[in-house]
């Protein structure tokens, strides 16, 4: 557990995750109040990363449940290992076990396949971090089921009984907002919207994650990304794209952005053809000019946009 908001900021930074005071406060409250953390934001702004870094900072296990439509209890909670159960019965017969004893043990825990939710609840030792990723992709039924698990942290398996968590896990839910979730679920959580980072923060992130990069290039990259995000693209690039791009430029041995470089490496930042076409030509030159004229250090605020 964390003792203060500052501790979270430091520990996250030690793991290479640059956070802001607002997010650190929310994470701190989530761990202190024992309430799940519900993170929303555009793709690629580092939602999943929060859970990973949280687990590392707490030096505990990260249990991940990736959601998708049709995810049901058999895949999220537990499943009996039917094949092993069948084999066990056959083996017992072969061993000559008395008829009324055959199959008596097949609902033992050794035949139980633990899925992420059960694993998080049965976990012994340090409280794990349970990451329920992309909850917006699951369906209503699963959402309702999750509501129950998250409020009591207990699971009932008919053949075994009720299993209650010794210590409830730290729960982080993430959503890309492809659909609205029920208010009931969100109300059980602490809500935080992760926005695109400011220029200063993004620069911090780039310098932390890609330490070999030259300062001039990193400023240009971040400034260029900031300009891009003001435009109306089908899919705006996230921090993940910035880092990909920075790494790509670094491995190509490039020291400074120019039109040719951007055109050839554009696929790192814009993943749709219509977006790439939109950036070509005049728009690209304008953005590049703005980026190059941006002499101020990271503290000077930007002026002007592409259009």
């Amino acid at each position: 557990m964390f003792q203060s908001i500052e501790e979270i900021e430091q520990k996250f930074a030690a793991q290479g995750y640059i956070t802001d005071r607002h997010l650190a406060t929310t994470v701190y409250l989530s761990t202190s109040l024992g309430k799940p953390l519900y993170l929303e934001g555009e793709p690629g702004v580092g939602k999943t990363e929060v859970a990973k870094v949280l687990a590392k900072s707490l030096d505990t296990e990260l249990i991940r449940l990736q959601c998708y439509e049709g995810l049901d209890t058999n895949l999220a909670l537990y499943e009996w290992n039917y094949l092993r159960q069948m084999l066990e019965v056959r083996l017992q017969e072969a061993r000559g076990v008395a008829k009324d004893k055959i199959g008596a043990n097949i609902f033992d825990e050794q035949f139980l396949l633990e899925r992420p939710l059960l694993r998080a609840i049965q976990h012994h030792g340090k409280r794990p971090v349970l990451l329920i990723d992309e909850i917006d992709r699951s369906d209503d039924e699963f959402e309702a089921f999750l509501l129950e698990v998250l409020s009591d942290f207990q699971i009932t398996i008919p053949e075994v009984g009720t299993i209650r968590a010794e210590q409830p896990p730290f729960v982080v839910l993430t959503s890309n907002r492809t659909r609205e979730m029920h208010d009931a679920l969100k109300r059980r959580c602490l809500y935080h919207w992760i926005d695109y980072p400011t220029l200063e923060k993004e620069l911090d992130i780039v310098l932390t994650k890609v330490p070999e990069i030259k300062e001039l290039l990193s400023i240009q990259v971040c400034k260029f990304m900031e300009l891009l995000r003001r435009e109306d693209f089908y899919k705006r690039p996230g921090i993940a794209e910035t880092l990909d791009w920075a790494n790509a430029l670094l491995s190509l041995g490039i020291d400074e952005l120019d039109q040719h470089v951007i055109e050839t490496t554009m696929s790192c930042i814009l993943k749709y053809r219509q977006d790439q076409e939109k950036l070509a030509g005049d728009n690209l030159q304008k953005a590049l000019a703005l980026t190059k004229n941006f002499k101020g250090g990271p503290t000077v605020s930007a002026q002007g946009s592409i259009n």
Partner: protein
Amino acid sequence: MTHQSLPFITHIILFGRKLHDAGIDVNPANLIDLSRSLQYIDIASRRDFYAAALATLIINREDMELFTLLFNEYWDALEMPEEPADPEKKTGEGAADSPDTRRQRQRADGENADDGNEDDAESEQTGYSSQELLAQKDIDSMTDEELEQARKIIAELIAILANRRSRRFKPAKSGAQLDFRKIFRRSMPYGEYCLKLAHRTHRLKKNKLILFCDVSGSMERYSRFLIQLICAMGAKISNIEVAVFSTRMTSITPYLNRKDIDEVIKQMSDQVHDWAGGTNIGSCLRELNEQQAHQMLSSHTVAVILSDGWDQGDAGLMRSEMEQLRRRVNKIIWLNPLLGNVNYQPLCKGMQTALPFLDYFLPVHNLESLAEATKLLRTLWH
């Protein structure tokens, strides 16, 4: 006791009430969470208290701006001895006085768009064949045979839209999927190999249907026709919501079982003509999104929009409302009578705005096209 010297907890409750009055729903459990969080943060730090209040009370990004505004308003009034005010305050204030300006802008847009659109609309209308138009065939003038045919097509269309395959399973007599749980259970009495295979298949579930019909100008005839047919099927369809719109949206679901539904629609569209208004799809979609948010808009909803897409409202508003609808419902189908014309291209502003959010864009200019659309949907659905 002065307002300032109330216990802090009372202020939290008063603040909660203020949020509630402004339309941000806050329930007592959230206020309790906020109160509990006070023991972990330094309440003299406005920044941290703001973060805590935001995390515990807000569950939608859309509410954040208004929340920030109200937050600053409430706590400024108390003059908390404090760090500098939140930087977001400025944007919040901007949002507060915007509705008026927005409306003005909208009106101006509408007027400008008026002239241009009308010309376009006329040239477009002369373009398509008048012989086969549904519009020419009022329900009264159709032969019994045609009426029966139309009813069948619509019934089938609705049946397709109303059913969906659940991702979950139910037992089945045959199929590719084996149900191991059941196979094992069944083989228990014999203790040997499993004697009989059990199968499973996807369940069928019901969708909710929203029919959103344009009744402005020429669209009224199409909408009336479709709604009449749906009424004729009456009670067979559960979970359907029908709304008509032009400058405003009106739900006519309560009237669906009335004999004089025809009259009701006519009255509504007459009203609209009296106002000489054009179509404002954006603001009508907003009404739909707001009014139906909890009852009808879910991931099991299919929204059918019947309109020619001539929008005279704010394109930005329409875009954001379409985006919201897109996120809330499972499928959006747009039926456009103009699409029947081979030369038609969805170039008008409204249609352009809507296109990226649609699952299906289909013509409905006559019975054949409706039957075609139905056939297409049947093969593509699920």
